[in-house]
């Protein structure tokens, strides 16, 4: 069984970390990740950029609307995610709209990825 592990924290606090502190945390995490990767158990790892860089496509209405900021409703739940390599925000939104057409209801939050490791072990 594959498990997704979703990371939650107070963004304002993490943004207030000094670079040294941030680097130290990332280095410690890398050690744990490498161990799992050696066992062939680790899939992709992503660190998202701050929510201020997010855009949300609300597809619970017709036509869907695009709003600035992260997804903020609490009565809906995270059910899945895509990683899409886009030239710019417009292209990412176009893909999200395509998905929305065949699957209305709920929202898509479009958030740039800051760090991505595909989880494949270095040879």
């Amino acid at each position, binding site marked *: 069984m594959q498990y997704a592990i979703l990371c939650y924290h107070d963004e304002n606090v*993490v943004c207030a*970390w000094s670079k040294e502190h941030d680097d130290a945390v990332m280095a410690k995490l890398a050690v744990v990740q490498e161990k799992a990767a050696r066992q062939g158990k680790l899939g992709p790892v992503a660190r998202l950029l701050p929510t201020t860089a997010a*855009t949300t496509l609300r597809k619970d209405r017709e036509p869907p609307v695009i709003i600035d900021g992260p997804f903020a409703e609490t009565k809906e739940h995270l059910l899945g995610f895509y990683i899409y390599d886009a030239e710019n*925000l417009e292209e990412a939104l176009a893909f999200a709209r395509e998905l929305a057409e065949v699957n209305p209801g709920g929202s898509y939050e479009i958030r740039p990825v800051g760090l991505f490791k595909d989880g494949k072990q270095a040879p």
Partner: protein
Amino acid sequence: MTDTRWINAVLTSARPRVVAALLRHFRDLDKAEEACQEACLRALRLWPTQGPPRDAAAWLIMVGRNAAIDATRRQRRLTALPDEDTISDLSDNESATVERLDAADYRDDILRLLFVCCHPELPATQQIALALRIVSGLSVPQIARAFLVTEAAMEQRITRAKRRIGGANVPFEAPGAVERSERIAAVAGVLYLLFNEGYTSDVAEQGARAVLCEEAIRLARLLLHLFPVEPEIQALLALMLLQHARADARFDDDGNSVLLPNQDRSQWNGKLIGEGLALVDKAFRHRRPGPYQIQAAIAALHSRATRAEDTDWAQIALLYGALEQMQPSPVVTLNRAVAVSKADGPAAALAMIEPLAGQLDGYFYFHGARGAFLLELERAGEAKVAFDRAIALANTPAEAAHIRLQLDRLAGSSGGVGKRKEPAKNS
């Protein structure tokens, strides 16, 4: 070693909201600052053993408020302080406070605090120093180091600024829409000044001054959290991120500045660029262009070019043209001319800047750019005059070194290459 860095990060991130709420409560900047200080001290004492409260900001506001009230009482009739276990157990009070601190309320509180520190009546250097002291919570020695002045001088500058805004009347009611957008614009302007204060620093000062760029980015992020759909604030943050992303590539090992076309782009910070580009895209979706958006779009075009020669100079020249319309200034025209020289050649660019000679005669970049255009047009004699003028106006050794390189190239093409010694650096 017990790790208390997490507490510092929590205190730093909570600080603007805490000081802002205490300022509304006490209506006195000094009292608010002291109360916040006291609350932070208690947090440092209690949190390592008790763990952090659910809502750190609410905890600090309550403790700060109570501590100040206790202090007043103590002065009056020496009442005993409640012991710390009672103060730290705030769960009931906490939720009540959180309710009172509804989003709109604390948004205007923080904006008011930022605006007080960025008050238009204060000179720019005082605005920046005050914002760093009060909102960011940097210590006076830290700020003094960043500004390359003595601690005593900085202490005096901050005291003066506080005295001055003590007299300025900042209303405590929630601002109207027009007033709110004026405050946002004033704060944004000071944040960009703060950023530039750090960005224009010379390499030897970089360590001490990088903190200015980082704080400007953090405060811009805070402002954007408060006003998430303001395209100019999105763009301001983007502009800072895109420029700061080049920090590691801007100076070589000898401390000479490396100009944009010569920078090693693999040293640019991809994470900051990614965030900046996303914000520029977001801002432009609003179709309400403004000066920060234009400047961020220009920075984005540089960031998107994998090699210097891939830069879309024609588009950059158009954007500078738009900026010139919004904020006419000879410096903007000069920048447009530099873009035009890349897109259409030096002759057109030189024609654009000749009329600026009067206004920009004391400006290093004007003579540097003019020399470069003349050099490209193979008017070596005039180029040398322009470069000599530029070198006399250089603000930093790195700027002078850059012009000297051009002069050496000129001299090289006509014979002897004179490598001069770096001038002694003023402390």
